[in-house]
């Protein structure tokens, strides 16, 4: 054979060679190779370095349980992927793989000093030191520890790939397409069930792929399943988590194996709801625990068989088997047949099935029963093993270049356990197997403990004459957890298996204990001298194998991450240079800067325009609810703090909504259109919350009321025209509505036509100026806005944004719920007593306002604040104190909720919540800021046109 590639055999395409590189060196493999099989074929044994001791490591397994051979793949900018298993990376022309956790190179790694000093780094060592001198922790110890941490390098650029996601439904989901899974699929193929069959490998077959005798059956079955219309086959697809009610998380890998990426998503998340689930995940072979069992070239015997029969690769030219289980013998016989040289079979058992002995004899393989490997010669690759007799420890050396471990099998019960199915311990298998299901699911084949691998002895570690406190016999290979670490944990009082796991980190590596948990349990069991079943088992958690963040995020990226809601007029604002702000899910124009204007200048100009002529504002985002039915007024009367029954059709009223705890949750102006019909408005952020709250009371507390709620937020585009010229601008555009002050007073609503479109026209004002809010069917919002802009040119109509709106309302002392209130403010605190119906026996939140602390003095109350220096605009959120001289921690009596420069007043204004504020008018308060303490006087809430003359024109 050439290198380690066998002359014949395997499923690789010998006609198609593939060029790839590892650590910069170029290699040749065959189509169908994994990085592991291709490198082994090239005689490469050294793949990586372990986490803690930086020990040289090779390939231990052939599948997703591989703990050692972790590498990074670099596909160019943003496409660097660390910690991939060489056994799962399919090679393609140009594949660039690099090793990890070593410096300067894989062969000579300075980190390996940790291995020499290993005796000083037992489990939990970091708890015991790095404490003195104290200052060294932050500056010296921790930075050093962190430098050592981690395996692969972190990605440094944004991933250009995209990921897809979908929901899927089926009657039967089969996880694992080995013989058991395929048999299940064939069995149900002729029913009318919708079947999905998933397997993590690149082709169906599982264990059968390493058994040429089964290939004809495999081909036939594969074809039958492909032809079945009700069967969907998904390869390179991992079922990673089993959630409530047969909801399975699955990820399909679509492009990583392709030389050219194209436009396809890299991976796709399938969220599958299955009627019934068949788990056929197979079993994982268990390594044996002995000194040097991590030397490159020491691997699972089943893996060697897979490399030979599936990939046509010999893992060595003189191979030794160390077995405690029959299955290893069968593997070795298969290897011998495939042309791999076998140096010896060593079995820890005193006797084995005679058939095995005869076959070994027939193949001329030397057998050493009742023997164990006590040591391995070679650092970067195996050169020989020392074996010894288990009774007299007499030893001998056997030259070899690979050691196979056959320590028995562990059923893959991961998904079964995610689903909360129970497990039972089987002494004969030395493993946990599925017991009672918690969902509609069955386990078949290897993962149910049902296999024909033969029998074996269950041992914690191989007998050895060596001082066990001096040897390195690995249990968790990646995390460098040795048998003596587990014994140390037990010695130090860690008895629960969860404690042992956390103290030693056994089973916490990227393979999540697939090859280490059971050996760890056995060793703990002997150390504690308790049966394994009495120690418990660490819980299995999703994912079964690591899954890409991007795949779990799915489409939710960039523009699709979360919806940004936009109004019908948004495109105009965008085109006219608006600066936007995000409010709840909405995007709103904050201000419209003209050339050279900053926010301050733009907002001043917008405010002046509203006060002097007319401004136009997109208020479409305000929540709207249509309340209809004979009991509409009664319902609102129970929900809102103020009375509603007497409100006449055609009139509006400010409504204040509390939560049952008595604190303000929303407000808005609402109109009565007819005796049985109201048009409510809510805050932009509150719309959904308020509707849900009202539905809750309506459906569960007052189901007797004949009233129904419909969200009309998006039925209407709302344009606010505010300013002394608003009426003049509007008059010529409106039909069927008399806009005169007498016919259409402040806080009224009229229905009519504007520019040929039906409108609900409100005469309301959030600015203190003569104002209208025009509601039209949403699709006409933009066109109406453009008509108003054209028509308004004569008045220098000025679009204004949310910032100017905030200033204008603050000048009038109108609150903004969520800014001037914070979920702990009552109507009285906010100075809104006038909005509370004194005579009403009940409304939502009323009773809570009578609680002791709510009626107690000293509550924070909303007041106006005028800085002594009119040019100082306080910071919103600034804290207020009575005595600025006091030491820190200071007693804070309140904070600034709103603060602006008021161009109309030529000075700054602010609103603040201040303890006992309503009794402090005229008092001077202090606002200590870094560098300077500001002073301000408490004032009323209304700064501009207190008598409201400008409204009623």
């Amino acid at each position: 054979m050439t290198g380690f590639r066998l002359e014949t055999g395997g499923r690789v395409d010998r006609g198609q060679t593939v060029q790839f590189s590892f650590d910069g060196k170029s290699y040749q493999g065959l189509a169908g190779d994994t990085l592991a099989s291709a490198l082994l074929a090239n005689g490469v044994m050294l793949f990586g370095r372990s986490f803690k001791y930086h020990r040289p490591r090779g390939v231990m397994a052939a599948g997703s349980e591989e703990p050692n051979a972790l590498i990074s793949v670099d596909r160019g900018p943003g496409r660097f992927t660390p910690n991939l298993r060489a056994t799962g990376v399919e090679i393609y022309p140009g594949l660039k793989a690099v090793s990890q956790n070593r410096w300067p190179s894989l062969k000579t790694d300075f980190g390996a000093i940790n291995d020499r000093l290993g005796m000083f780094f037992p489990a939990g060592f970091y708890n015991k030191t790095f404490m003195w001198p104290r200052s060294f922790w932050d500056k010296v110890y921790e930075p050093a520890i962190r430098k050592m941490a981690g395996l692969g390098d972190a990605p440094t650029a944004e991933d250009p790939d995209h990921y897809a996601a979908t929901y899927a439904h089926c009657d039967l989901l089969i996880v694992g397409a080995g013989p058991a899974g395929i048999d299940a699929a064939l069995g149900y193929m002729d029913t009318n069930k919708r079947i999905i069959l998933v397997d993590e490998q690149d082709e169906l077959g599982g264990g059968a792929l390493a058994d040429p005798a089964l290939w004809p059956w495999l081909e036939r079955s594969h074809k039958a399943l492909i032809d079945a219309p009700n069967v969907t086959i998904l390869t390179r697809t991992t079922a990673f988590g089993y959630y409530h009610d047969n909801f399975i998380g699955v990820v399909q890998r679509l492009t990583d194996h392709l030389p050219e990426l194209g436009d396809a998503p890299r991976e796709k998340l399938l969220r599958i709801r299955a009627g019934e689930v068949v788990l056929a995940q197979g079993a994982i072979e268990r390594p044996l625990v002995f000194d040097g069992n991590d030397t490159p070239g020491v691997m699972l015997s089943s893996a060697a068989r897979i490399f030979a029969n599936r990939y046509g690769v010999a893992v060595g030219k003189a191979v030794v088997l160390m077995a405690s289980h029959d299955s290893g013998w069968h593997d070795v016989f298969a290897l011998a047949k495939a042309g791999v040289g076998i140096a010896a079979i060593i079995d820890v058992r005193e006797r084995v099935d005679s058939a095995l002995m005869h076959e070994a004899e027939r193949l001329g393989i030397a057998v050493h029963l009742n023997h164990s490997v006590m040591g391995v010669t070679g650092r970067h690759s195996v050169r020989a093993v020392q074996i010894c007799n288990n009774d007299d420890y007499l030893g001998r050396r056997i030259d070899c270049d690979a050691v196979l471990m056959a320590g028995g099998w562990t059923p893959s019960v991961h998904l079964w356990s995610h689903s909360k199915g129970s497990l039972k311990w089987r002494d004969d298998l030395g493993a946990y197997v599925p017991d009672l299901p918690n969902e509609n699911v069955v386990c078949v084949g290897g993962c149910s403990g049902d296999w024909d691998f033969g029998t074996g002895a269950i041992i914690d570690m191989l007998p050895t004459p060596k001082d066990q406190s001096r040897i390195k016999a690995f249990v968790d290979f990646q995390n460098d957890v040795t048998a003596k670490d587990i014994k140390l944990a037990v010695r130090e009082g860690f008895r629960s298996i969860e404690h042992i796991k956390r103290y030693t980190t056994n089973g916490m590596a990227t393979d999540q204990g697939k090859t280490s948990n059971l050996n760890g349990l056995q060793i703990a069991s002997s150390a504690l001298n308790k049966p394994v079943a009495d120690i418990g088992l660490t819980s299995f958690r999703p994912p079964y194998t690591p899954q890409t963040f991007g795949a779990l995020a799915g489409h939710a990226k960039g523009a699709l991450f979360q919806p940004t809601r936009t109004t019908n007029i948004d495109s105009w604002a965008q085109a006219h240079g608006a600066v936007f702000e995000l409010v709840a899910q909405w995007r709103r124009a904050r201000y419209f800067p003209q050339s050279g204007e900053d926010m301050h200048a733009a907002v001043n100009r917008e405010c002046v325009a509203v006060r002097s002529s007319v401004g136009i504002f997109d208020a479409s985002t305000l929540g709207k609810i249509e309340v209809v039915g004979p009991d509409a007024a009664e319902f609102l009367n129970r929900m809102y703090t103020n009375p509603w029954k007497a409100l006449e059709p055609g009139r509006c009223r400010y409504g204040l909504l509390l939560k049952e705890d008595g604190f303000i949750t929303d407000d808005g102006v609402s109109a009565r259109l007819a005796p049985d019909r109201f048009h409510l408005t809510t805050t932009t952020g509150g719309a959904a919350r308020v509707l849900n709250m009202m539905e809750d009371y309506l459906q569960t507390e007052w189901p007797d009321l004949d009233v129904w709620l419909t969200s009309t937020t998006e039925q209407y585009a709302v344009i606010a025209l505010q300013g002394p010229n608003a009426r003049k601008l509007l008059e010529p555009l409106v039909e069927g509505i008399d806009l005169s002050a007498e016919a259409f007073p402040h806080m009224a609503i009229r229905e009519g036509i504007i520019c040929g479109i039906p409108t609900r026209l409100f005469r309301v004002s959030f600015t203190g100026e003569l104002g209208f809010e025009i509601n039209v069917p949403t699709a006409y919002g933009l066109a109406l806005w453009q008509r108003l802009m054209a028509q308004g040119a004569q008045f220098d109509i000025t679009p204004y944004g949310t910032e100017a709106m905030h200033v204008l309302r603050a000048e009038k002392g109108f609150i903004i719920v969520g800014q001037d209130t914070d979920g702990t403010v009552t109507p009285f605190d906010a100075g809104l007593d006038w909005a509370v119906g004194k005579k009403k026996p009940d409304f939502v939140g009323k009773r809570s306002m009578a609680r002791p602390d709510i009626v107690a003095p000293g509550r924070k109350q909303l007041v106006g604040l005028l800085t002594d220096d009119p040019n100082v605009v306080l910071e919103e959120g600034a804290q207020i104190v009575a005595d600025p001289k006091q030491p820190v921690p200071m007693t804070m009596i309140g904070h600034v909720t709103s603060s602006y420069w008021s161009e109309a007043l030529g000075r700054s204004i602010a609103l603040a919540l201040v303890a006992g504020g309503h009794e402090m008018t005229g008092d001077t308060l202090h606002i200590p800021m870094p560098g300077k303490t500001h002073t301000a006087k408490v004032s009323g809430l209304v700064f501009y046109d207190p008598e409201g003359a400008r409204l009623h024109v």
Partner: protein
Amino acid sequence: MILIHCPYCDEKRPEIEFVNAGQAHISRPLDPSSQTDEEWEAYLFIRANPRGRHHERWRHVYGCGRFFNAVRDTVTDKFETTYKAGEPRR
């Protein structure tokens, strides 16, 4: 994502169509003003939070829009039953 049987739609629908609305069968006192502070506290805040059989409310907000009641085991997360608002406690 659990499946929830909506008693109005009479079918099992995925959890994200629903919002949980807290403990069931806590009805608002007919005359809150007559409540003592303790009684009012109990209505507002005190919850059974049982480990096991739990009466709770759900709203099929992205479906028929109805609030309804359910009995669910809080250890297994499995539903025992769901029933319409206003029906007696089960």
